[in-house]
């Protein structure tokens, strides 16, 4: 069937902070200059915010540049950080360390990034942006000259085997002079752009972390609005990069999460279970006495920083936000850099679209504008912290202190990364980890957690977790690595089950929370995450 097409000046893929900031800035500029400019945002979640998951402590710098009157406009940044703690944990004890400068949060706010995005979307629509949630961009379209022409949304109503079902509706083509990819970490289309335009040539590999987060409603006695705690150390060993966050929002809500570097070596490690076990620490568990868990989710983040930033532009489009990897890991924040990159991109695009009416141009001054912005300087200064953790926790802490306090991020060297999917050791060389059984009160199993992410996918559709080679999961992953996908997936998507006496991989795609960890960590990169039907995936409230 022929697909219908719609034309826009700019199409933005992804309604997160980066994509929305771009759309808003573009429309602001168009209104300031009195010119027409059609901007469309596509979002695969059922609504804006449905797939947004973040800590989050937000630095309002970019927001204030976008909307100097954000407070009067009612932006949902309601809880200023009042108290900042940085703890090193052993199994039983907690030691307070001086809070490293990047992690100091004076002037920042504890937010639900999902709610910030919901608010940004309202502002965007008010400025004339067309926002279409529930539609996943599934395919990049190209002109004959190889430049990006736009995207196509996924077909709806295909059966499990890929045939057209009774309610089949073919995808739409969205054509644009410029297509902006704001898919977030490990974007499924961004990944194809890296290859097609060789955008990663000459830069470090990207490395990742997986954040697993829960939202709790705690008792008023345990609630301290504005309190921020970060921990390192237990429960992970010193060779593994991991740490927690614990933020007290408004309304007795507490956000707790654990971020684990996906460069870990032991295939028996389960980020989900590390998070569960972390909550049982004596310094942590008391917060949750008498509390109830209200939401759960997980999302991978880009951790490579400065040296992993790819080439950002190509004919007909560009990358912004965490799709490009602008997260500041030592700060454990990326929303301000995501927004800033989007705003800088918008300014560059607006100039380009004013001067060049043709299609398929490249916004070449976007990277230059970025280099002149605070974003570049901020990421450059912290570039050596994450790679130093390759040496283990204490050497890294020592190095970080020198790099931060003595060299002030201006070290004449840059440390490098190794890809996460190569870091697993064969199971035979590792010790299985005996995680405690969940108690159903403070700690939980995966399925009851996924339940709280409100995740769903229409059952009748092709599996969106595709395998390049269906034999690899048993032949390699199970045989050599004891099936690590069963453990790294925080949503219980992957299971090995006995069928006719032999173990088979079962993919429960309906559970998928779109964290992208499998696409990142699979040892032979055999799993390719593609977009399911639009509207599928988690429905995070207040995350």
């Amino acid at each position: 069937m022929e697909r219908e097409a719609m034309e826009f000046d700019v199409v933005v893929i992804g309604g997160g902070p980066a994509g929305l900031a771009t759309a808003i800035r573009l429309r602001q500029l168009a209104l300031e200059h009195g010119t027409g400019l059609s901007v469309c945002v596509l979002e695969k979640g059922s609504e804006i915010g449905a797939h947004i998951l973040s800590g989050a402590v937000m630095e309002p710098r970019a927001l204030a540049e976008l909307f100097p009157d954000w407070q009067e406009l009612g932006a949902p940044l309601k809880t200023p950080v009042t108290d900042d703690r940085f703890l090193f944990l052993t199994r039983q004890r907690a030691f307070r360390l001086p809070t490293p400068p990047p992690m100091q949060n004076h002037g920042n706010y504890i937010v639900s990034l999902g709610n910030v995005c919901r608010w940004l979307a309202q502002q965007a629509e008010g400025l004339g942006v067309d926002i279409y949630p529930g539609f996943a961009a599934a395919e990049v379209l190209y002109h004959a000259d190889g430049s990006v022409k736009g995207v196509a949304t996924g077909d709806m109503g295909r059966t499990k085997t890929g045939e057209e079902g009774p309610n089949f509706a073919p995808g739409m083509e969205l054509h644009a002079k410029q297509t902006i990819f704001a898919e977030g970490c490990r974007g499924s289309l961004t990944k194809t752009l890296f290859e097609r335009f060789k955008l990663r040539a000459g830069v470090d590999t990207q490395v990742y972390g997986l954040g697993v987060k829960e939202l709790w409603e705690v008792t008023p006695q345990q609630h301290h609005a504005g309190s921020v705690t970060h921990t390192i150390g237990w429960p992970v060993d010193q060779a593994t990069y991991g740490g927690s966050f614990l933020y007290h929002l408004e309304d007795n809500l507490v956000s707790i999460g654990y971020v684990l570097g996906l460069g870990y070596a032991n295939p028996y490690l389960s980020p989900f279970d590390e998070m569960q076990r972390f909550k049982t620490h004596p310094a942590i568990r008391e917060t949750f006495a008498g509390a109830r868990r209200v939401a759960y989710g997980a999302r991978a983040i880009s951790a490579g920083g400065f040296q992993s930033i790819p080439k950002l532009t190509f004919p007909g489009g560009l990358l912004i936000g965490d799709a490009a990897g602008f997260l500041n890991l030592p700060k454990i924040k990326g929303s301000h850099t995501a927004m800033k990159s989007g705003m800088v991109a918008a300014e560059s695009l607006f100039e380009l679209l004013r001067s060049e009416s043709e299609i398929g141009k490249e916004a070449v001054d976007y990277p230059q504008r970025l280099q002149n912005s605070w974003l570049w300087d901020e990421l450059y200064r912290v570039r050596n912290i994450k790679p130093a953790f390759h040496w283990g926790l204490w050497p890294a802490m020592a190095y970080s202190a020198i790099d931060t306090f003595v060299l002030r991020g201006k070290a004449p060297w840059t440390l490098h990364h190794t890809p996460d999917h190569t870091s697993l050791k064969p199971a035979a060389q590792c010790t299985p980890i005996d995680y405690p059984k969940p108690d159903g009160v403070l700690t939980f199993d995966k399925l009851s957690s996924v339940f709280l992410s409100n995740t769903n996918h229409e059952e009748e559709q092709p599996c969106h977790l595709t395998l390049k080679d269906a034999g690899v999961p048993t032949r390699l992953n199970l045989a050599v690595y004891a099936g690590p996908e069963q453990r790294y997936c925080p949503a219980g998507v992957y299971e090995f089950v006995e069928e006719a006496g032999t173990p088979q991989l079962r993919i429960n795609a309906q559970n998928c929370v779109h964290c992208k960890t499998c696409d990142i960590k699979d040892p032979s990169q055999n799993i390719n995450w593609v977009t399911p039907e639009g509207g599928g995936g988690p429905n995070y409230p207040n995350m």
Partner: protein
Amino acid sequence: MTALVIAEHNNAALNIATLNAVAAAAKLGRPCDILVAGHQCRAVAAAAAQVVGVAKVLHCDAPHYAHGLAENLAPLVVRLAANYSHVLAAATTNGKNVVPRIAALLDVAQLSDIIEVIDPETFVRPIYAGNVLATVQSSDRVKTITVRTTAFDAVAAQGGNATIEALAPGPDAGLSTFKGEELTKSTRPELAAADIVVSGGRGVGSAENFAIIEKLADKLGAAVGASRAAVDAGYVPNDYQVGQTGKVVAPTLYVAVGISGAIQHLAGMKDSKVIVAINKDEEAPIFQVADYGLVGDLFKEVPALIEALDK
């Protein structure tokens, strides 16, 4: 004042759901009458007079009451309502069809699917598919109520001695005509409405093995359900699935065979009156919600159960 229960019947026999509605009326602590409106339904009226706790049976016989059409039944009840403090019916499809119409004609609110009587004005009812319970209070002069049958133990069908009073029929509203019925008697009942459900999970192992579940279901006159794992594994089609994204069921008896009891499945069946679990894994979460658990190999236990049911 008295409560009025609208009998559910097929003109030949009293549907036992009526006994659950009478039980709810009994919790109001006041006498209860039964309205038997139908066609040639004298036997039903006689049966209703035997029900324990019933003071009076109002028997209204006319062809246009034969199929419980709301357009004819509602005005009849409205005519009687002045004498009653409560009008109740079982939350069957018939009860749900007619009671709101009665409420609107009386200009009162209706309370759907109550599961608990707190006092004659205050009731508990499930909302959000049973994930939340609402306690609601009505100050309307007549409370119109449908009753979740599984929440009230039926009163005894025998042992009462009510008087039967003939009631003059009202006019045929002439708005709707009954054309026929297709009752699924020969095949299994529909999952969402079944009184008994037998569900199989991944433990069943294959599509062929699911026959064992079907056999048990047929023995019990039950509908067949499945867990998501069984559906995902392709043992049975999608519409068998019990659970959050599939159907929510609340039968009188739910038998879970080879189902571990993932929360999604539990959400779909936790309102069942009695839950039986058969699973070889003693630690399976299903046992945490089952009233009766049997640890064992389903391929041995299910055939044995079928045999035991014959005894």
